[in-house]
């Protein structure tokens, strides 16, 4: 039983909540509401005045074929990154969970990439796979593969997916490993005595017992691919070639910051926000039901 403290005054509980609420308001609700407000306005070219134009920004946005292309790119990109980074991290974590002599060193090296800033990671991958300079691009070309992420949109997308996956594996690995280590060893042993081979044990015992971790990581990873991959995309491809790697969040930046169309950029942020909120809600509503015990 957890003991809860009781306060006689009505004021104190609210005072204790103030710091948290202030932070949430200043750094979340205020900017978010500004974005919503901005999405209904049109700024003049010099930024001196703005006028209310209703839903015109949204109408213009949904009339753009580029926007649908960005949505499709985002869908492909986020599915690939979330699926690959989760499954590869799970594979690595199951290996690290075994009683190996080198396990501590292995874990340390696995976690390292997480300490690399997204933009730096992007630059690393850009140079490694640069068609003429890249140390890893050369063997590809030598094998007769016409590797060129600077001109080929698919190659560019593969490159940013690899960079984003590489960056996220460490984080997922850490949580999967902690999840695996919290599964009692005797339950696995009981499975072994009950005649389940290693693969069957994994899919019928370990994987279901990991589901709270997997669900948490799914939510975090979806948010990651939607927002935090901006740095990688900017450093590796800058959204190109010809918009092949322009995801929705990158388009917000490109249209607002580079194109100067603040109204459209704000409208895109609102759409993006709505999508992420909806996705998270769906995950909580449907996936969490399947999360075991």
């Amino acid at each position: 039983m957890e003991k809860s403290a009781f306060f006689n005054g009505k004021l104190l509980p609210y005072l204790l909540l103030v710091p948290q609420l202030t932070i949430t308001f200043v750094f979340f609700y205020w900017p978010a509401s500004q974005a919503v407000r901005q999405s209904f306005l049109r700024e003049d070219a010099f930024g001196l005045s703005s006028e209310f134009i209703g839903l015109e920004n949204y109408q213009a946005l949904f009339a753009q074929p580029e926007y649908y292309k960005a949505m499709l790119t985002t869908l492909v990109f986020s599915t690939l990154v979330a699926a690959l980074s989760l499954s590869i991290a799970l594979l690595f974590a199951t290996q690290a969970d075994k009683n190996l002599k080198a396990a501590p060193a292995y874990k340390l090296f696995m976690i390292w990439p997480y300490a690399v800033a997204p933009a730096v990671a992007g630059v690393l991958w850009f140079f490694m796979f640069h068609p003429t300079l890249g140390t890893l691009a050369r063997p590809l070309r030598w094998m007769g593969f016409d590797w060129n992420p600077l001109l080929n949109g698919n190659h560019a997308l593969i490159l940013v997916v690899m960079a984003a996956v590489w960056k996220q594996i460490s984080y997922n690995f850490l949580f999967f490993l902690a999840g695996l280590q919290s599964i009692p060893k005797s339950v696995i042993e009981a499975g072994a005595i009950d005649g389940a081979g290693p693969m069957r044990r994994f899919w019928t015992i370990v994987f279901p017992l990991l589901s709270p971790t997997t669900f948490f990581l799914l939510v975090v990873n979806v948010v990651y691919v939607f927002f935090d991959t901006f740095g990688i995309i900017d450093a590796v491809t800058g959204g190109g070639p010809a918009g092949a790697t322009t995801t929705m969040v990158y388009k917000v930046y490109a249209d607002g910051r580079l194109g100067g169309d603040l109204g459209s950029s704000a409208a895109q942020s609102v759409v993006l926000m709505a999508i992420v909120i909806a996705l998270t809600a769906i995950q909580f509503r449907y996936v969490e039901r399947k999360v075991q015990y």
Partner: protein
Amino acid sequence: MANVVLRNVRKTYAGGFEAIKGINFEVGDGQFCVLVGPSGCGKSTLLRMVAGLETVTSGEIDIGGRIVNAIEPADRDIAMVFQNYALYPHMSVYNNMAYGLRNRGMPKPEIESRVQDAARILELGAMLDRKPRQLSGGQRQRVAMGRAIVRQPKVFLFDEPLSNLDAKLRIAMRVEIRKLQRRLNTTSIYVTHDQLEAMTLADILVVMNGGQVEQIGNPLDIYQKPATTFVASFIGAPPMNLLPLRSDEIKSQLEGSAAANEAGLLGIRPEDLVISSDSAAGGIALDLTVEAIERVGAETFIYGSRRHEAQGVAANPGELPPGEVIVRIPGAIAPAIGERIRAVAPREKLHLFSVDGRKRIEL
């Protein structure tokens, strides 16, 4: 149905620590064998070696005439009940029991009938759809038992299955386990550190200490004729009184017997001592000062210090400190603290051990 034979079984860990130092014993078909010993004596390791969860460094483990050293746990035809039950938390009670049968590709109707049978025997019928977390400790314990019996294995292995239950439930489950084992007539090996559980459950009792077997036998034989001072102290509560023979008080009383010339330890069970003012003809009388009294209702334990012997600290946990003697008397009427009493034991109730406590000497 099978017997289990261990031949010179050893276990050495990678660090060089020798957990099991050459163990031999045989459990006959349908017998209930209990491995008992203090924590760290290797009894759980030995059980896990029989289960196949630990490798065998050398020696042979034979289940039903087949050497199983290199055989996977799943193929040894054993079932194990774990201390923490190790139920699958995400599966219902039904699926917990059916899991091992499904893995072996048993047809559905047969699984259904076996699980229903086990549920009836263990009174789990109403709980088949529940998850383990919705059950009480005793119910979880039953599910763990159910998971073992549906498999109808050759051997049951129990790793301290009752130690997570409260005292009352532990006694009830102890009786149930024994009844169930008799009914199914399945060879069983049971690990416990509780000497009372060991005494009440075992057909064969294996007392272990420091990775070695101290004594093997029928529980009552072990109680009546402990082979070493370790067994004498470990089996029986309160433990046997152990007194050095060289003490003048004892030596003079045993004059004329073979024991008087030996250097060794004299053992007397607390219940074999009687408070009496007579001197014991041929037996032994100890002059004590009452230090403490424990009344448990039906009987009373009197802790006395010997007036002719220096007091000290116990050499091993579970043993009495030198100079202290426990007397167990029926009823609740006891002498007062500080009173001087004489405790007497007849000759035939005395046990004699070598100085190092490793050998029993017949009087």
